[in-house]
């Protein structure tokens, strides 16, 4: 084997990777922000709704969880515009897809969190005269947040990795940047080594930061 590692070409195009990493983070942050709203609204709705609404929400969750993300990305980006008359960029399309995707997972996370709020705390809220809405805002959601924060962190980190799927519709995130460098320099080993390291380091940094947030939230007063 006469292959010698040469990273020079990678460093020369490193702006592609750095810009890609920032875009990956941006995609993950926007998607989970929308996903949290979807998840919260549907979870709160689910636990207080009748069978029909529960069925519809459960169907959404099941559909998303059982279809590969890459297929969802194709469906929304290529499929939807042919059926209905809409036009959107690849990036918007991907954010919408990833938001719907994370929303489905977060419905489950938040729903089980809401159901895990101890009965006694809800009783205590009732006993001091809080209305159902006040109990939701001041008692159930804060307790649910504590219960679900670790799962929420994990969802975010896995979502960050899932942004690599956006490369299939040419969104210039990190994996796409890697492909671009590979196609233009043929330094396949070097570029994927560097990108792997970038995903790893960023993932661990996020995990560390989120664990700090969790600890702060547990002791915040």
């Amino acid at each position, binding site marked *: 084997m006469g292959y010698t590692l040469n990273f020079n070409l990678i460093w020369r195009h490193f702006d592609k990777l750095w810009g890609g990493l920032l875009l990956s983070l941006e995609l993950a942050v926007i998607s989970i922000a929308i996903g949290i709203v979807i998840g919260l609204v549907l979870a709160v709705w689910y636990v207080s709704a009748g069978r029909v609404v529960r069925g519809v929400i459960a169907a959404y969750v099941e559909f998303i969880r059982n279809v590969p993300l890459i297929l969802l990305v194709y469906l929304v980006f290529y499929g939807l515009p042919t059926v209905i008359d809409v036009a959107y960029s690849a990036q918007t399309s991907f954010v919408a897809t990833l938001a719907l995707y994370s929303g489905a997972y977060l419905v489950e996370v938040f729903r089980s969190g809401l159901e895990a709020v*101890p009965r*006694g*705390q809800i*009783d*205590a*809220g*009732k*006993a*001091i*005269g*809080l*209305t*159902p809405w*006040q109990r939701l805002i*001041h*008692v159930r959601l*804060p*307790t649910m947040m*504590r219960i679900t924060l670790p799962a929420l962190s994990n969802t975010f980190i896995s979502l960050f990795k899932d942004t690599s799927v956006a490369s299939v519709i040419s969104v210039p995130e990190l994996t796409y940047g890697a492909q671009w460098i590979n196609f233009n320099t043929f330094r396949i080993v070097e570029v994927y080594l560097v990108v792997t390291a970038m995903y790893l380091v960023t993932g661990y940094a996020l995990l560390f930061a989120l664990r700090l947030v969790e600890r702060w939230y547990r*002791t*915040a*007063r």
Partner: protein
Amino acid sequence: MATSSSDSPALLDIAEVSKSFGSVEVLRSVSLKVAKGEVVTVIGPSGSGKTTLLRCVNFLESYDSGSIRIDGREVGFRDGGARQRRSEHDLAAMRAETGMVFQSFNLFPHLTAAGNIMLGLTKVRGKSKSEARAIAEHWLGRVGLAHKADSLPAELSGGQQQRVGIARAVAMEPKILLLDEITSALDPELVGEVLAVVRSLAEDGMTMVMVTHEMAFARDASSRIVFMADGGVSAVGPPKEVLAAETTNERLRSFLARFRASQF
């Protein structure tokens, strides 16, 4: 302590309340009147309906028939006999008139001791934050926890948590305080500090209905004792009468014998 006469105007009027969980009848036509300033203790074997009765008074549990009135107002159902459940909004307003202290404390874990007390004051009573804080500090002082105002429940002992629980309930200035086995989850050495707080509230004239297994405390602090068995009121009267060794009530005698063996 206030009068125990049953013809003084009742603050709490429980009339022929019955309730079933499925086929199990947990309350059988229970009637009980509590006058302002009275301390009524409910005793009885487990499963006799004591806690359920207490939870019906602030409508944490609904009941199948009968009525429960506080100051003449039906608690869980609309006035006017149609037996229509009150709206959640009305229920919340009614519940704000009673305070409840729970066996397992049930403090809000994300709020400090002061925060637990302030929540109802700001959201239900509409007080400003600073007003609520002052009231919270006053009551924390009363229960001997002024220095713990900014501690989270997880940083407090069981006895301290329960004293915050009492402060949270009384700070709302309820007409009646309901105490549901408030020392049952505590280590024996922490029971005294909690009962001391209850005693001082009784001396202030707070109307209380409490379920307890602390017989000595019931005897000393109550105006009347209610003995429940099988979902009904089996005996009621002043502590000396109800706890008398020579009672002819068979259920009561065997119940008391168990406690005498260990406590008296």
